């Protein structure tokens, strides 16, 4: 089994990287992951790039809502209130 092997290879590193970032590797897996990183420039770069990817994706937060949509939703609220009040009045009769 490859988990029994002592050292991780790059091919395995790229598949474990999210578990590493999520903190879900076991302690021994984590040790082996970090040992490989310390010795491998390419995987260190790959990790940097995954972090940069996460950061760049986080910068995609969309533009604010268009004013037209806001008006439409305010209108939705008023219609709903009117229905509620009507329903309430009927119920009290």
């Amino acid at each position: 089994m490859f988990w029994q092997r002592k050292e991780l290879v790059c091919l395995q590193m790229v598949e474990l990287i999210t578990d590493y970032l999520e903190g879900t590797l076991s302690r021994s897996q984590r040790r082996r992951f970090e040992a490989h990183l310390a010795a491998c420039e390419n995987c260190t770069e790959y990790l940097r790039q995954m972090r940069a990817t996460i950061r760049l994706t986080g910068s995609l937060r969309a533009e604010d809502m268009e004013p037209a949509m806001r008006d439409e939703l305010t209108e939705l609220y008023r219609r709903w209130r009117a229905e509620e009040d009507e329903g309430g009045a009927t119920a009290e009769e």
Partner: protein
Amino acid sequence: MDEDEELVARLRAGDEQAFVALVSRHHAAMVRVAGSFVSSPAIAEEVVQDTWLGVLRGIDGFAGRSSFRTWLLRILVNRARSTGVREHRSIAVGDAGPVVDRSRFDASGAWMSPPQHWVEDSDDRLLAEGLADQLQVALGELPARQREVVVLRDVDGLSGREVCDVLEISEANQRVLLHRGRSHLRQALESELGSL
């Protein structure tokens, strides 16, 4: 009490401004999430509007066991899913296979064609060259389940736990989808920015 809780309390008391404030806080994220389930922005907007109506009707029943955001996104996801199914959009499980092409590693599993460097200037180019648009396209090309998880986690900033609650998937599943989605986006960025 956090800001959402305060607004929910005011909404229950019939404060229209509280509703508008909740809409402002959550609408953009909802449109993004809905957009990963249905085929067009117009349908996504409809799903979101329908969700807000569901919120108004259900707010008295919201028990506060989960956060308002989680509750809201669950309503949204349920509606978006049933709409997506109605328009026969396939619910892809995601792709399989390694996240980095095998041909980039040698027989021992070490990098043969290592990652090309691009991190250094990505921030400048994000602004200057419309990298954001390209990243948006790459996000749109992910299999739907991966896109849902990446949007909720990395664009909207939900925790892994919240994403599991909203999408009703296991933590292991969430991690696999996140891993595949992020790895694809990294590759897209490398293809765009590397070797220049």
